[in-house]
């Protein structure tokens, strides 16, 4: 298992993500969040287990289902919520929304909503590090659906060929939007796909936060010592629809119920912590109360945020003359 302090941190972070995401759904229904909204409910153990294994100098490139990654990278929940509310106090100034959260100071490179487009970006960041003699890792999160894109194959090839320090974190939630993995991929063994490019690869139970953490630790250590890329599959499951527009016609309710009832990463871990005497019911209640307060603060901050004047509509298209880059 683990120690009490780590257990508390991991459970706290999973609950923070879960409650934030549930509040996003509520705010969507209330009309305060618009556009596409992709929630991470069910997959919390992946981001919570893996992201803290990276250093602050490392880079993170994520997808359009990235609220958890942004939060775990240290972007305040207030800034994330304000972004989804379209307010200028948001972490992308209200220009990005749910799918495009960014934070340069934390080396968080989005929030990329073209499937697999983040892979070459991460490899490029790693290429720059290698070229400039910096010992850093660029971690790229993407779904198993991305492994059907050309960008995945092109990037795996070049990352191995050039020995780039890029960590490919594949969140396999079994569905590419609504298409089950068996219906979208001729090879469903994702590790085999990576090995086909001779990229070292492993698979982890993404519903188990400690397993995710341990696998990420191994991956990070491999890259820091060997230098080249690494592919890590997290086997996980999305409890909610793909986005708020998804009626979920493609999977059985019973399947979802089974995953929720049997494999909820938060329930499982909370029970384990209690059984091992690491946390008690009062501890968990306190964690829930703190998360609820953080979420309430985030909503209040976002609500109080301001709308940018349309006078500045066309800013941030090009760097203003005289600004340094």
């Amino acid at each position, binding site marked *: 298992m683990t120690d009490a302090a780590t257990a508390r941190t991991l459970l706290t972070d999973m609950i923070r993500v879960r409650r934030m995401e549930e509040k996003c759904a509520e705010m969507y229904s209330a009309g305060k969040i618009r556009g596409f909204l992709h929630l991470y409910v069910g997959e919390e153990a992946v981001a919570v287990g893996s992201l803290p294994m990276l250093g602050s100098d490392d*880079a993170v490139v994520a997808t359009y289902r990235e609220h958890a990654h942004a939060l775990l990278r240290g972007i305040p929940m207030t800034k994330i919520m304000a972004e989804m509310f379209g307010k200028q106090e948001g972490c*992308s*100034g*209200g*220009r*990005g929304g749910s799918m*495009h959260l*960014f*934070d*340069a100071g934390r080396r968080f*490179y*989005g*929030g*990329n909503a*073209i499937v697999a*487009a983040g*892979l*070459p*970006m*991460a*490899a*490029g*960041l*790693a*290429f*720059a*590090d290698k*070229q*400039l003699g910096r010992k850093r890792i*660029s971690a790229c999160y993407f779904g198993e659906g991305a492994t059907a894109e*050309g*960008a995945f194959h*092109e*990037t795996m*090839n*070049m990352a191995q*060929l*050039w020995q780039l320090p890029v960590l490919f974190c594949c969140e396999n939630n079994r569905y590419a939007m609504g298409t089950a993995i068996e219906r979208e991929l001729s090879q469903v063994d994702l590790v085999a796909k990576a090995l086909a490019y001779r990229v070292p690869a492993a698979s982890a139970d993404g519903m188990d936060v400690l397993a995710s953490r341990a696998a990420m630790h191994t991956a990070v250590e491999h890259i820091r010592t060997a230098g080249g890329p690494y592919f890590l599959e997290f086997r996980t499951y999305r409890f909610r629809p793909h986005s708020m527009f998804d009626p979920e016609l493609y999977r059985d309710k019973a399947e979802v119920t089974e995953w929720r009832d049997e494999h909820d990463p938060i329930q499982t871990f909370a029970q384990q912590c209690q059984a091992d005497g690491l946390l008690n019911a009062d501890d968990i209640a306190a964690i829930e109360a703190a998360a609820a307060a953080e979420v309430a603060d985030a909503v209040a901050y976002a609500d109080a945020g301001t709308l940018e004047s349309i006078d500045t509509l066309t*800013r*941030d*298209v*090009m*760097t203003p003359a005289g*600004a*340094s*880059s």
Partner: protein
Amino acid sequence: MTTTYRNAVHDAIADAMRADDRVVLLGEDVGRYGGTYAVSKGMLAEFGADRIRDTPISELGFVGIGIGAALGGLRPIVEVMTVNFSLLALDQIVNTAAALRHMSSGQFSVPVVVRMATGAGRQLAAQHSHSLENWYAHIPGITVLAPSTVADAYGMLRTALSSPDPVIIAEHVGLYNLSADLEELQPTDISRAALRRNGTDATIIAYGGCVPKALDAAEQLAQAGVDCDVIDLRVLRPLDDATIMESVARTHRVVVVDEAWHTGSLAGEISARIVEQAFYELDAPIARVCTAEVPIPYAKHLEEAALPQPDKIVAAVRGLFGQDRWAGAQRPGTGGR
């Protein structure tokens, strides 16, 4: 010193690499092969395989890596063999490079330079000959350049490398052998159009590989006593409206030459801008000389027939004048045809 357009691009890259360790060149066959158009010949020996990086045939991937590398602090020059092939990388250029600064509210900019050969005239047929730089000129967030002279082949690339934002450079395949006698190559601006020839009777607007054709046509017209301004756009985005309108206000007649097809062309955009900004200066409808609406054919005579040519430009300028006005425009004592 006599030098060619090809050598000017070569020297721009080499000088930039000597001046700044962050500059790298990525692309298919830029290293051992020396570049498809021999632009990077000899560079591997001087700068090594880390900085002159041969890539697999993965346009989407290596353009994307160039974008990521720019975000990571390098100053990558990415060579894409032709603008036709750049369509494989269109997603990375349009959805990532051009949009990132805006999506992140100014937190990230992408100082990548993507060079690509463009244009027809070498019997390379429909998959190696198109002029699609207009597609990039449509996109906010990138600068699109079309150097047409040896000086600009060097100068615009050098300046592009100091841009904090993505720059696309379209190098017309017909220009690589162009030579010029220049005292010295130096950075040139990447914001203004250039008046390559001064006239009073009509304005011919062109860019890239059509500039020499426009100058040729203007020379023929001068023999007939009609003096034309020839504007070399140089920068396809953002367009330099001021230079265009200043000329139109003097000549009152305009022909726009564009190696892209008429439909949806930059020539159409320029015509619209002239109508919006200088309609009452016009003494005749704007004329366009563009490529025939056909994928570029292989056979030499068909390819030539499809493309803008000096005689078509001459005819288009003549068409701006009525029979009487044409006679009036022709100055006595200058000959004529």
